[in-house]
């Protein structure tokens, strides 16, 4: 015991020195639990690309330790998530979990991570609960909470003098939470949500609800859809003739990675998100250039979130000198850190959700052009978190 303590003391004393032998030189096992098939497969790949890009910038090592990946396709299927995450933790003995895109999967992961106190970084899933009631010292998020873009848009629309709004979304966590965030800010600033429409995920037959919107005649519509559903919704909205009469606003995923398919029907739509195209941030420009060169793809918000997940891991790992058993020090270092992200630098809240600028963007051409900052350093209220 004494020997152990003195060894630890020695290691702490060596902190900052780059003596290789004092560090844990075995590989860090990173478990990537992401969707590699199905609707969200492009997102899963972008996250992994972003993660690997940061790693490559660090010469393939974090805090002197090489990184080994164990990949699991979570298929965006919450019912398989607990099994998958248990495999990663118990069979593969991963040191850190990265995942996932789908909120339901991320919740199942967070539950297991919390019980086994495995280090976990969420690179996309915005479920409020991950950094709310489910928050834990070992769970971090590099993306956003669903509440954040919704809340920012509520303020923006109320300031524009819009009074009556209909919301429409899929009936599942991400949709509900976006709308709740929106409603909170919008009604606090004097607006009214006259009707909340929703349809089961991932149903894309919108025609009945569009007719309902036309019959209700609100001043504007706020929506949360993503991926294929977002494309179809924007196109159907325009085809139903509503684009001209009732302006459409949304959480940023409505027009992210979907603009090619949406074409002219998306033109002019305002959305809020923690990332935008053509931002004047040096870090972003460098990031985009390298990404485009390496992967022959344009980076998106998911790639940024993957990149930042790697940054969070690196910051924590460096602070504990590669020793992942020191969970408290890891968390303390990450909480103190200012993360130099392509989206602009951000910090993590006590509940480990990014405290970040939410941008207002407008679709111009094939870009989500930055209009301004919708909400500066917006922090999720982390309701239900006892950290």
């Amino acid at each position, binding site marked *: 015991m004494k020997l152990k303590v003195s060894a630890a003391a020695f290691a702490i004393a060596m902190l900052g020195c780059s003596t290789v032998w004092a560090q844990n030189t075995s590989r860090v096992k990173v478990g990537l639990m992401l969707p590699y*098939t199905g609707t969200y497969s492009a997102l899963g790949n972008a996250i992994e690309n972003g993660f690997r890009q940061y790693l490559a910038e660090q010469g393939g090592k974090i805090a002197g330790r090489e990184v080994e990946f164990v990949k699991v396709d979570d298929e965006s299927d919450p019912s398989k998530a607990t099994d998958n995450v248990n495999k990663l933790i118990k069979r593969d003995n991963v040191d850190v979990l990265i995942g996932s895109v789908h909120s339901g999967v991320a919740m199942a992961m967070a539950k297991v991570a919390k019980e086994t106190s495995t280090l976990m970084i969420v690179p996309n899933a915005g479920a409020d609960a991950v950094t709310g009631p489910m928050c834990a010292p070992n769970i971090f998020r590099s993306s956003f909470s669903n509440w954040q873009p919704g809340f920012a848009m509520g303020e923006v629309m109320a300031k524009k003098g819009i009074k009556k709004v209909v919301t429409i979304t899929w009936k599942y966590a991400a949709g509900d939470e976006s709308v709740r965030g929106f409603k909170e800010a919008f009604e606090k600033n004097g607006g009214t949500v006259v009707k909340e429409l929703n349809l*089961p995920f991932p149903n894309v*037959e919108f025609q009945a609800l569009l*007719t*309902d919107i036309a019959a209700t*005649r609100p001043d504007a519509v706020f929506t949360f859809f993503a991926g*294929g559903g977002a*494309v179809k919704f924007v196109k159907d909205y325009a085809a139903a*003739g509503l684009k001209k009469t009732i302006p459409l606003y949304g959480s940023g995923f409505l027009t992210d990675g979907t603009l*090619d398919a949406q074409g002219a029907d998306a033109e002019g739509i305002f959305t809020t998100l923690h990332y935008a195209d053509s931002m004047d941030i040096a870090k972003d420009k460098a990031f985009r250039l390298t990404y485009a060169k390496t992967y022959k793809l344009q980076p998106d918000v998911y790639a940024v979130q993957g990149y930042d997940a790697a940054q969070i891991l690196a910051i924590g790992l460096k602070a504990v000198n590669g020793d992942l058993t020191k969970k408290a020090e890891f968390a303390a270092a990450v909480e103190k850190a200012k993360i130099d992200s392509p989206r602009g630098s951000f910090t993590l809240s006590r509940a480990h959700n990014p405290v970040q600028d939410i941008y207002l963007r407008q679709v111009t051409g094939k870009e989500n052009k930055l209009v301004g900052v919708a909400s500066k350093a917006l922090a999720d209220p982390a309701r239900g978190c006892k950290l």
Partner: protein
Amino acid sequence: MDFATFLIQCLNALQYGLLLFLVACGLTLIFGIMGVINLAHGSFYMLGAYMAYALAPLVATTFGGGFFATLLVGVVVSVVLGYLLEWGFFSFLYEREHLQQVLMTYGMILVFEELRSLLVGDEVHGVEIPPLLAGTIPLGEMMTYPVYRLFISGVCLLLALGMYLVFTRTRLGMMIRAGSTNREMVQSLGIDISLLYRVVFSAGMALAVFAGMVAAPVSSVYPGMGDTVLIICFVVVVIGGIGSIRGALLAALLIGVVDTFGKVLLPQAAGVLVYVLMAVILLFKPDGLFKAG
């Protein structure tokens, strides 16, 4: 809901129902007549949608283009593909248990998804509505209705009529119906049943591909799009009665109505209403509305 809105919602219901029929009729053909549970039907639908997206530029350079030329090429390709798939895989399944059929066709879903990912990638794509049909008709003061949606409905109706005529009025239809009732007897009458099945399978696949291609401009093209379609297709087939074209049409329209009005009037239950409908119908008619044969 005022009367005008009600009428528009009826139109929505009709249109959605017809679209469902278009996708499901190929499945009921293969399932009902050949007795094969084809889980890959959704993949055929996806294949069609991706063909509408990926073939268009190729067709444009070789034949001068056009949406309808692409449709034609797509259907021809799918008939050939269906013929080969039947010959290579499905023809071994007729005598097997349903479980083995499910296993193989599920495997096909995975293969098709992976191939799609390798060949076209995982992005979401849009397909342009042909300029001829790109217009909209005003409905009330606020809304417009896309002409293309009406076109889809028209195509579905024509197809339903065509299939009905082929089944009831032609020799081929007679052979198919006979084949579904008693395979051996038809064979002993000197009809090449294997060839017949191959034709039916090709037709079923072509219908799914065609549905995917026609729906692509309104549904957009994205990974996993076949999965969601597959489930609702099975609901249509089960409600309608396995193998019955007439039943599939009626079931699709019923689902259209329940889904459309369910979303508006009972939004909390919209997700389950269709399945409640199925349960209720099966309670009273365990074989579906119309059982073939």
